[in-house]
Structures are given as C-alpha cells and as structure tokens.
C-alpha cells in the first residue's frame, strides 16, 4: 500500500482546520477564496419550540471544477440542509418565511453568496449552479408539461423567444436519453416513468450548462438498473461540461464510483474528509469504520456477520457535548491522554488533504483500523 499506512506525525503537531472556536463567523478569514467553491464554517440552525436544531454546525470544504465531492451520512446528518444552504434556498428573501439561521461563508467562483444580494444569487441559481432532487415526482410541477418547465428554467436566464427555448428543451431531453424528445416534450410528469422523470429533471437542471451541479440522492428512489443509467449520464455530462458535482447520498457504493473527494457527516458536522481512496482504505474515524462495517459487500467474500454501529443517530436538538458520535462509539472508553470528553474534537490533518475529527490519537486510530477493523471487513 502507500504511505497512508504510516501513522501521521505526532497528533500534537497536526494542523487544526478550520478554526471554528471563533464565535463570530464573519471574523473567520474573510479573504476571498481561490477555489471554485469554498464553504467556510457553514452553520444552519432552525429555532423550534423544542430548542435550536443545529442541522449543520460548522462545515467547511472546497471543490474545484471538474471534481466530484461525495457527501455521505445517515438521515438527519445535515447532508440535504447543506445543499439547500449552498443553493441559498433556506432564506425566502424579503418575506423571511423560513426561520433558518444560516451563517458562515460560501464562496462560489470568487463571489461570497451568503452576504450577497438575493437578486444576485437568483441570477446564479439555475444558471451557474443547479440541483437535482431526490424525488422527481414532487420536484416537478404536475400541472405543466415537462417541456414548459424546462423552457421556463431556460428563459429565466436567457432572453430568447419561446420557440428557441423549446428547441433547447428538446435538445436537452435528447441529451439525457429520452426517446422521441420532440413528442415527449409535451408530456406531463405523470406520463413518465420514474427513471424518465429523473432524466427530465436532470435535463432541467442542465439546461443552462451550470458549473456546479448538486445531486441530492439522485438515484435513491430508482431501481439499480436505472440508477446505473443515471450515474452514467451524470458522469458523461460532467466530462462534457467540466462541471463540479456534489453528490449527496447514503450509498457508499455510489460515492465510491462517482466521487474524487469524500466528506462524511455525522450530527451536522464533518467527521472525516479526504480523497475517496483514502477514506475507503485508510478511514480515520470510528463512524466511517461503522459505515464500512454495516454494509454488505457484493464484491467481497461472504462475511458471516455485519458489524453495525450500535444505537441510533443523535437528536439534533440535544447533540451531546464533545464528540456527537461519543454515545455510539465503541472506542469512547479508550484512554486518550489529556483529552476532555466534553470538548468537541476538531478536524485534524491526518495526511495531505485527509482530515478527521476524533479524540483518538493518529497512532491509536491507525492501530485500531489495521489490527481490529480492516481484517473483519
């Protein structure tokens, strides 16, 4: 194997990224980002009668053009809330109906989005960044034909007449592989099958050639053969347009196939981040180990038993002090030097580009992974 096997340099010397201890998010390095997309200390909190729900609590990552970032996590870990946050869909503009409190910074192509004028963001949304939703039946309008909806998405950003836009819609439907696009353009969403609907939605998202595509569980509702078609389509389109893609899913198989970078979320925070190769082969967080152990593998020799994570995901209202994974962590009782349990572990660099937020020392983690976990998978 590679040099990832070697334990990282002493944990005390490990770099801490990012500095989330600063109370006022605006104070965190406001230097413009050089990355295509950079999220800095994103927090999305929802005040409710029961308390503050911290759906996303201090998330940072960067993404370059042509790259695919996979975000994995269980339901309630904040994956979708993050994507809606990037798209600026939490704040409903002047009416302020959404109670979400979004703080942090989102740098998109050199522009900061969270503090920007909502009208400016609207110009980007759909044109520069677009989203594919999980359930195409509820994401498309049942009263309008598929063609009309694609035409609308195009004409919002392009000053063209309906005929030109319709031609563009047919072109897009053809591109995503819908048979007889010139006829199907006048169909309603209910006349499409699940896979075709998902294709139509992809056509709608891509009609303006966005540079950033966020796919939120794009294949979860689909059968495995259709899923393969859709993933193939997204891969092809990414190759053709060089867009950056954020792939949100709970299926480790899908991310292994699609993602260059991987971000594992738990309880609204990133617990591990790195290249897909490193996260799969040198995972550095007990939760990632748990995910890998929970998954029956089609490509491996039959294992007798799965190694599940005990317990259930935390409530986002009462996230435990310290590490959110602590109550479920099998290594919570391993002595960790002078670490206080109630302190939240920060992301620390394990190797170049690979970060993990765990109180275990790098040596401990490497030892547990290579000696206890890896042989059982």
């Amino acid at each position, binding site marked *: 194997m590679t040099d990832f096997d070697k334990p990282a340099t002493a944990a005390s010397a490990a770099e801490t990224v990012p500095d989330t201890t600063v109370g006022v998010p605006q104070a965190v390095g406001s230097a413009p980002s050089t990355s295509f997309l950079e999220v800095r200390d994103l927090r999305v909190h929802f005040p409710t009668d029961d308390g503050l729900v911290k759906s996303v609590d201090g998330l940072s990552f960067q993404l370059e053009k042509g790259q695919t970032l996979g975000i994995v996590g269980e339901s309630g870990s904040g994956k979708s809330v993050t994507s809606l946050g990037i798209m600026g869909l939490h704040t409903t503009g002047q009416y302020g109906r959404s109670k979400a409190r979004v703080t942090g910074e989102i740098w998109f192509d050199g522009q900061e989005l969270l503090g920007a004028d909502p009208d400016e963001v609207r110009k980007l949304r759909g044109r520069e960044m677009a989203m594919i939703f999980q359930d195409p039946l509820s994401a498309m309008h049942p009263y309008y034909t598929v063609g009309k909806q694609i035409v609308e998405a195009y004409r919002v950003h392009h000053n063209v007449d309906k005929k030109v836009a319709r031609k563009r819609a047919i072109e897009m439907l053809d591109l995503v592989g819908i*048979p007889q696009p010139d006829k199907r353009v006048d169909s309603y969403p209910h006349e499409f099958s699940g896979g075709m609907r998902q294709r139509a939605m992809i056509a709608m998202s891509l009609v303006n050639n966005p540079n950033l595509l966020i796919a939120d569980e794009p294949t979860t509702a689909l*059968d495995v053969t259709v899923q393969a*078609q859709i993933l193939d389509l997204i891969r092809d389109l990414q190759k053709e347009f060089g867009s950056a893609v954020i792939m949100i899913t709970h299926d480790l*198989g899908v*991310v292994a196939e699609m993602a260059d970078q991987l971000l594992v979320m738990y309880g609204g925070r990133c617990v591990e981040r790195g290249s897909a190769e490193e996260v799969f082969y040198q995972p550095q967080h007990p939760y990632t180990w748990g995910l890998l152990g929970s998954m029956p593998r089609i*490509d491996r020799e039959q294992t007798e038993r799965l190694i599940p994570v005990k317990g259930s995901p935390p409530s986002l209202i009462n996230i435990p002090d310290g590490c959110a994974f602590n109550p479920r962590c099998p290594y919570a009782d391993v002595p960790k030097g002078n670490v206080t349990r109630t302190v939240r572990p920060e992301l620390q660099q394990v190797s170049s580009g690979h970060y993990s937020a765990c109180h275990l020392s790098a040596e401990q983690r490497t030892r547990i992974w290579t000696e206890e976990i890896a042989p059982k998978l």
Partner: protein
Amino acid sequence: MSENETKAAEPAQAAVKPKGEPLLKVENLVKHFPIRSGLMQRQTGAVKAVDGLSFEVYPGETLGVVGESGCGKSTMGRLITRLLEPTSGKVEFEGNDITHMSTAKMRPHRRDVQMIFQDPYSSLNPRHTIGTIVSAPFKLQGVTPEGGVKKEVQRLMALVGLNPEHYNRYPHEFSGGQRQRIGIARALALNPKLVVADEPVSALDVSIQAQVVNLLDDLQQELGLTYVIIAHDLSVIRHVSDRIAVMYLGKIVELADRASLYKAPMHPYTKALMSAVPVPDPRRRGVKSERILLKGDVPSPIKPPSGCRFHTRCWKATEICLTQDPPLLELKPGQQVACHHPENAADQAPGEEIVAEAKDAVKVVDVAKDA
C-alpha cells in the same frame, strides 16, 4: 477474487442441500388484477403482477427474492401469506393446500406464517401502545401464553433488543430501527414457522440496516425460522439468503443458490442486474471496467412482451425469444434458469440469429474514470 469466491461457495452449497419435505410449495401461481372501465365496469384488461411462479421453500432456509419495482415480488409475498387470493395456481403449506381456503379455515394457519412489512412507520397503529401491538396476535388467536400476555410481550421485546420497560410507549417515541424491531417482535409472537419479510431494511439507515440484518440472522439461528426475504438490494439479498429467486415482470427468470448465482449468473437479466450494482471500492473503478447498461424501462405488466419477457431489453434475443416463453429449467444442479441463450451454460436454442434490435439493446460502459 475467484479464489475467495470458491472458498465461500463450499459452505454455502453444503447448507443449501434441500432437506426433507418443503415447508412451502408454490405451483404455477398467478395473480392478475383486473382493470375495469366503462359504464358496466367490464373487465378490459389485467395487470399481470404474478404470472406463473413455481418454487419451494425448505425448513430452516432463507429464500431471497429480488427484482426491480413492479416485477411482482411484493404481490408474491402477499400471495404466499394469503393476504391476497391467487387467480390460479396452488400454494401448499406443510402439505395443506391453502390456495382458496376460507378466512375462518385460514385462521389457525395464520400463526404459522407471519409477515414483516417494509415501512415501520405505516405498519404500526400510532394510537396503540407497543404492548397492545405486540400482544394483538395472542388476542386474535385466542392464545394465552405461559406466564401471561404481558410477560410474554416483554420477553419478545427483549428478544428483539428493545427495552421491556417501554411496554407502554407509543410508536412515535421510537426511531425507525426500533419500530422495525417492534414489527419483528409482533411477527414472532406466535412462534411462526415461516416469516415473509417484504423489504425489511430498505427504509432504514445503513448503520441501522446492519443491526436489523444481524437480528434476523440471530433469530433464525435461535428459533429455527424459515425466511422468505423480498428486497431490491442485491448486496443485502446476497448477505441474508441461502437461495435466491430473480424475478422479472411476474416471472422467476433464475432460481439458484447464492454462490452459483453471484459467481456465474445464467440469465442475461441477472447478469445485467449484478453489473449495475455500484461497488463500494474506489479502486475497482480501474479494475471492473465494464458494465452492462440496460436501456429503457421495464415494460408494462398490463401488456407484457410476447415470448421471453426480457427480449425487448436483451442483447442476445433471437427469433425464438420473440415467440416462445422459455421454461424454467435446471441447467446445473441447484441453478434453474428460464432462458433460450443462457450465460455460463450451453445454449438452449443454438444456431439462431440475433435479431437486429437486440444489437443495440444495451450499452457497455467503462466505469473506470479517466485517470
């Protein structure tokens, strides 16, 4: 890789040898749901959800049923539990024909066959406590367990890993995984012989999914249960099953023991299905570089294609496939397949010309990303 698989194959095959009389025997099972229209509500067609299934389930084994949505696997589950009455065919449980048994006569049999449902949110009555839900089978069957109902319910709750003190709580107080455990406790209340589980883990998160899969496994060991597990996830099915039936449009296209099916699938559909499963290993992107992509969608079960139902999407289709429905034949010990031109076995109809449409029925893609 092949070494690993042969090693895994040996114990699996040993465990699969059918022992004695089948617990459940299904012959030519058919279920058509009528479509009525017009003023007189005359039947104008039928959804052929299940169209001629024959299989057996032996005591102590797990039969996995896998297929895409709309292939009739859930209908099959409801037919063998007699929640639906078959249009034709025969279902035998322990030698008794239960196909058209009346509700009253069926009742004593019900305790032997239980079901676990997919959605743990809609399969539990929100206004009943867990105690009421898990004890309902006793009430319906007029059974008083030893030591009283409450004690037995608490024993069952402990058995599936729930806190017995939560007897008086309501379903909304539990998480998805815990609710699924409640459903399992209810199914086990009457000591059933056969448990039919329809997508028991697909609504659960990955980490919870593993807990439930392990629980089902433990309970089978402990109680000697027989399972029919219906699922669309091929990795889960492979993990839990001894034998696997692959369904396509209301028919079984392949029925084989686990090792043979995953190592050498014979039906082209099975092969395509397997190659479509994303492999959770980034390094495989370079190694396993070919994937068979089926085009289009599953045809409608209202008007299934003539002959072999898969011929519209099959890359090996010939004239005979368009006209003749291939029978389910045992081409290798423990591996039955319904195909004229199987993979990994002798051609059943040699010398046929592949039809023109079949030539571009699939797209073989390179999964390896340009590195």
